[in-house]
């Protein structure tokens, strides 16, 4: 079954067209990467899939549910880590996890299980019982990721999951995502600027530029298509060839 199905998606902000009819699918259990420069439409796409923004035109479905008409059902299946997401700083780490777990869990056992899993993903140890205002940026991002993944969503949407983190913290986050998918079989849709990260994590990748999907495939397919030694090079060539065509 398709985890995400996007057909001819347009999004306008006033006169400005942020998405110009993009189309792509994500298979269940896949880690799918959306790569593009600033202002290319990545966050808009993720926000539409996450039911926060409405499409101006086109169809977006998550596990067969329409994100506009069946937004409530979609929100039962997904979890979202926004790029600039932060946590409730006056609450402790575990209180943050508990709050989000209670939003998804039906029974107290389910909630306890989610929080336990969240503590494990965060890797914060006993610091999870401290107030978030005492955490470093890296610790906050790990807790935000844990909060997103602990509910074991069918689709996890991660907008720049390692944004602003140092190398060590980024590696920790990437490993957490990989481990999560291996253990749960969930689908992950992520956006990133970091090509190494995308190459390491993603089964398939879409390049997005100026509101258009300009290439889509596995990292190896894309490298081969653009005769590049790595994904970064492939991305640059894809954008350049797009510019030449227009």
């Amino acid at each position, binding site marked *: 079954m398709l985890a995400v199905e996007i057909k001819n998606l347009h999004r306008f902000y006033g006169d400005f067209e942020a998405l110009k009819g993009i189309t792509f699918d994500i298979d269940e259990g896949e880690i799918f990467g959306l790569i593009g420069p600033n202002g290319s439409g990545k966050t808009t796409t993720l926000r539409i899939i996450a039911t926060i923004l409405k499409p101006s035109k086109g169809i977006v479905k998550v596990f067969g549910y329409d994100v506009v008409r069946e937004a409530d059902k979609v929100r039962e299946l997904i979890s979202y880590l926004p790029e600039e997401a932060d946590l409730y700083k*006056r609450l402790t780490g575990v209180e943050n996890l508990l709050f989000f777990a209670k939003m998804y869990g039906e029974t107290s056992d389910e909630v306890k299980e989610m929080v336990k899993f969240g503590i494990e993903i965060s890797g914060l140890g006993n610091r999870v019982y401290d107030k978030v205002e005492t955490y470093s940026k890296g610790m906050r991002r790990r807790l935000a990721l844990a909060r*997103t993944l602990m509910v074991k969503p069918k689709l996890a949407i991660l907008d720049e999951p390692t944004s602003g983190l140092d190398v060590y913290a980024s590696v920790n986050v990437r490993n957490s995502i990989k481990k999560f998918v291996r253990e749960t079989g969930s689908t992950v849709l992520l956006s990133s600027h970091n090509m190494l990260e995308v190459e390491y994590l993603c089964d398939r990748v879409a390049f997005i530029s100026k509101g258009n999907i300009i290439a889509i495939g596995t990292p190896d397919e894309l490298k081969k298509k653009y005769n590049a030694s790595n994904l970064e090079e492939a991305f640059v060539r894809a954008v350049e060839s797009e510019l030449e065509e227009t």
Partner: protein
Amino acid sequence: MNWRRLKNIIWKELLDLSRDKRTIFAAIIVPIIFYPTLGGLIGYMFKAQPAYIAIIDYDKGEYSEELKNTLLNYSKYFGNVNIFTNYTSELQVLENPNIDLTLIIPKGFTENITKSLNGVGIVYIKPNVVSSKASEALSLVEMAINALSNNIVRKRIKTAIPNVEPERFLNPIKKVVEYIGPGGRAASPEERFLFLTLMIFILGLYFSMHPAIAFVTDSVAGEKERKTLEALLVTPASRIEILGGKLIASLVLSGVAAGMNTLGVFLMYTFLFGGLLGVQIPIGGGLGLIGIYAIDVFLTVTVTVSIALLLSTVSGSVRSAHSNATALTTVLALVMFASIYGDLEKIASQTLPLLYLIPYTHSVLALVTFVKYENGFIYSVRHLLILAIYTLALITLGAKLFSGERILIAKVKRKGRKFKLKLFA
């Protein structure tokens, strides 16, 4: 509506807001300390500060002595008053800037009074314009002069028309004052202070509003500013559950703050008037008025929360939401201050019906009509219902505005393309 999620949101909001020590201190602790301290301080300052009266007696006659003695006698019952009789000239008095009032009895004062039945004695009273106790000193001096005048008139009556009773001659009209309440019934002694009670309650209403603004702007605009809202909006919780949880939590804390504010304002006036007049303020209107006031505070706070909620959903930061909500509610609350100096019901019903459009007009009228009319309860409930309708309408509007899309792009639309690009990243 999923009650489990609603309860969870309320729990989170109460935990989060209650740990904001500065807001809790400013909204709940400060009123109960600050207002009574302020009232006590003003009362104490007024009571502890003596009034200084200087008397310069150039006459040294029978009546100037009587006037001085009357003043000295009255001053014993008039609080903290010091009378100086040792000054011999105005120049001496000028050397003491603490003198609040100077009484000059010129030479010939007694002689002018006694030389004929038409004789008039003159005294010069010079209150100091920069003194806060001058009016108190003036009252005392005028009382003493009136007493002396009455005494002189009685003597003249006895001399001129010996068969007339001086008291009846002086007071041909006997006043009988009977205070009445709504419907003409005799008012209890406490009810004579109803105006004062209402004034305190209306001020209590005003002070109750502000903590509500702090809580709701922190809860809604704060969530946006601290970048926690987006993740919350994607949880299975519906918009109504999120908004409802935030509203209920804000109302719980606002209710506590409102109670503290009302108590603080009441204590402020108790200490203030206790200090000024040495009297305690009784609560006229009884339990009925207190009950109506409690409901009125709740609905006034709820309306305020609803207004702040609307502004919070379209504001980019806590600061702008808070300042916008404070500015708007303060302007609307001017009716409360106006009602202290006049009958808002008369003004609204006879000259300015537009006032009925302001929700806080109904907050005031719910109290005023309760004590003014015989069946005041019915009128009061009518105004409380209007407040409730306002609240429901504003919350419904707030719920409609509280969509992820509107919240996220509200700032962008106002601030232009520069921010649009940031959003699209």
